[in-house]
């Protein structure tokens, strides 16, 4: 692999992982804002409206970061992966254009109304805008996952005489069996992230003794919704997504699980360090036969190990294995913490249990890590393929762009993103410090807008 390809990969890895920190919250938070506005419209309770406004302010900043870090993604296919783009543009261009036409226009138009239009449109239209923004965010996520799913499991394409591929069956592309469980897993992960962010913010307010009503609402909503989606990450979305990997990419599954040897009654490794020279797990803690059961529903079924595949078709073992175990480990922690939260809520002890609020607050970074780890499994685990079975990663890079250029722009992105990240965090913390507008006690009249400090 040449230096230029290494630089291209580093740049794409960096820009996509940084980018995803924002849309994961955009996709997860938009349904919460729509839900809060629905609750307000249904009950007339102004605390929901105030909560919706607070989260909309965070959402606007987060959305802007998602937009500015997202624009380079679409163009990088052409700049750094020109051969891939020529090869696969006839297919992946479709889903990317579908995203622009059916999701971005919807999302950006009605976000304008959501942010700027509260005193220009009726409450119902404003509520509708929040629903449409959420719809746009979720549709956008689908088309991106459909694009990725095609690279994981190419379907609906035909090969032209010049060797490039193009769309042959539109509905096969959208109905890709790989896409739907992957999409459900991604969206469930996004909503879980937003729920944990919400619960952590509410926990902070309760611990600090500020904005108690809003804090209780946020913690309750975050914990209850979060518990549901934490479970959904495991089953059905995670489980069925893994089955797709087993069917379509068995070598990735063996890598994720650190299974070197093909065997009946394969064990599930909970902990352990894969050693690629000795081809075994060091210092493992395993549950015997469980992997066979999870994969095939039979404790004695044979699961193929890495040894069955030539070395040049195996993904990088360590990164894939560790990323997968980090994701699953964190997912288990989320289930435990959030179910404990549901139990406390059931016993009406939730807002008072300060030790638990501290746990919720400390949990804030982990859904981000879990989401990034999950995508690492999907992408690194796909190697050495760029398009599974059709195009290897080094073959996809731009022939004219040299390593020095890409390193220059990578450093540029790194500098810009570091600066933007710091400013973003600073501004979000300011919004949190200001807090939501307090609803006036026993308020019958509609709540005042957030005090405008401009």
């Amino acid at each position, binding site marked *: 692999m040449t230096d230029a390809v290494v630089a291209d990969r580093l740049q794409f890895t960096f820009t996509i992982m940084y980018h995803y920190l924002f849309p994961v919250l955009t996709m997860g938070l938009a349904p919460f804002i729509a839900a809060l506005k629905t609750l307000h419209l249904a009950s007339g309770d102004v605390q929901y409206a105030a909560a919706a406004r607070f989260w909309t302010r965070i959402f606007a*900043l987060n959305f*802007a970061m998602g937009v500015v870090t997202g624009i380079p993604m679409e163009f990088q296919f*052409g700049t750094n992966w*020109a*051969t891939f783009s020529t090869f696969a543009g006839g297919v992946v261009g479709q889903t990317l254009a579908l995203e622009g036409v059916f999701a971005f226009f919807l999302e950006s138009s009605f976000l304008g*109304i959501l*942010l700027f239009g509260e005193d220009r449109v009726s409450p119902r239209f404003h509520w509708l805008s929040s629903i449409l923004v959420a719809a746009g965010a979720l549709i956008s996520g689908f088309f991106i996952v459909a694009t990725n799913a095609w690279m994981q499991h190419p379907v609906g394409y035909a090969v032209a005489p010049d060797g490039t591929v193009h769309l042959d069956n539109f509905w096969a592309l959208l109905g890709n069996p790989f896409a739907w469980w992957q999409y459900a897993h991604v969206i469930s992960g996004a909503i879980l992230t937003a729920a944990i962010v919400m619960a952590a913010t509410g926990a902070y307010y309760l611990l600090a003794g500020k904005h108690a009503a809003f804090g209780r609402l946020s913690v309750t909503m975050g914990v209850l919704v979060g518990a549901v989606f934490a479970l959904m990450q495991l089953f059905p979305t995670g489980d069925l997504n893994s089955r797709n990997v087993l069917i379509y990419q068995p070598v990735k599954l063996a890598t994720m699980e650190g299974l070197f040897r093909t065997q009946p009654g394969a064990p599930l490794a909970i902990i352990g360090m894969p050693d690629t020279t000795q081809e075994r797990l060091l210092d493992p803690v395993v549950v015997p036969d469980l992997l066979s059961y999870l994969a095939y529903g039979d404790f004695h079924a044979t699961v193929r190990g890495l040894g069955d595949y030539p070395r040049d078709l195996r993904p990088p073992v360590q990164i894939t294995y560790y990323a997968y175990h980090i994701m699953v480990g964190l997912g288990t922690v989320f289930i435990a913490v959030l179910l404990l939260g549901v139990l406390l809520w059931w016993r009406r002890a939730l807002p008072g249990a300060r030790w638990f609020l501290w746990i919720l607050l400390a949990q804030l970074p982990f859904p981000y890590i879990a989401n990034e780890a999950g995508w690492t499994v999907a992408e690194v685990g796909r190697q050495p393929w760029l398009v599974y079975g059709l195009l290897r990663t080094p073959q996809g890079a731009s022939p004219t762009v040299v390593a020095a250029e890409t390193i220059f722009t990578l450093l540029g992105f790194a500098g810009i993103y570091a600066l933007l990240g710091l400013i973003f965090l600073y501004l979000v913390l300011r919004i949190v410090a200001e807090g939501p507008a307090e609803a006036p006690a026993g308020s019958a009249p509609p709540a005042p807008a957030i005090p405008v400090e401009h």
Partner: protein
Amino acid sequence: MATVWFAILAGLLIGYAVLDGFDLGVGALSLWVARTDEERRVVLNAIGPVWDGNEVWLIVWGAALFLAFPRVYAVAFSGFYLPLMIALWLLMGRGVAIEFRHHIQDPLWRGAWDVVFWLSSFLLALLYGVAAGNVVAGVPFDARGYFQGLFEWLLNPYALLMGLFSLVILSWHGAHYLCVKAEGHLYERAHWLARALWGLTALLAVALTAATFAARPTLMRNFHAVPALLIFPALALASLALAPWYHGRQADRAAFLCSAGVVGGLLASTAAGLYPDLLPSSHDASRSLNLTNAAAPPDALLPALLWMIPGVLLLAIYQVAVYRVFAGRVVLGKSTHY
């Protein structure tokens, strides 16, 4: 089918140039027309609800190019590597400047983002023109069908002239938008600038037309073959001629539509002149990327056309809804976001 997609791409690019063009122009003028914090807030709130949607036209154009002409997308974007990356960074700076500025009430903070917003808009308007100039003049393809965009030839006199023209015409278009949205001193300055920039636009348009025929003499070929295409340059010319009349009568919306007509008419004329080339070669015409050697097969283009039609209808509905909701002049109030 490839011709239809050529027209769709031209349409998307015109949509982008007309719509994001005015908010880029507003940005390029912002430091001069808006002096106080309040005036700058009016400027940002004037484009606030729409600039992001306008930028989506660029995203959709890029993706449509990707799906319909993958080879052009790949060759052009990797060829123009560094300039394109700089454009992306400018787009990023512009986006965050708009969104970050209003969070802190502090003259240093706001002043810094005002400069970022102005500079990024200014340079983008310039850069788009330089890029368009290089596409019209053609690029030096190598034997593999790729090229490397080096600054030493990207910054040629013709492309720089096109860049200057792009900056001037978009600023003029932006001044018209401000005339529609602003009041008071801001309106007066924008109104004055619109008149001054009209003269400059007209002057540069003449110079650039002459330079374009020198750079690409074959541009008239299609107009001879299909005289109906002359409607595009005619539209641009009529709009340019009518603009000062509406402007003088303070018919601000009509004047804005005129500058939109000039921008759209000129781009449509250029596209009509370039057809069937998408990315012409500067030396060996057989290496040009055109409809026959760069288009995806009809199997891929037909379904895309079928979903594009309802998509564009929906998009028209959203855009009409947004522009209707925010019609009228900007008044700073309690729910102005910026």
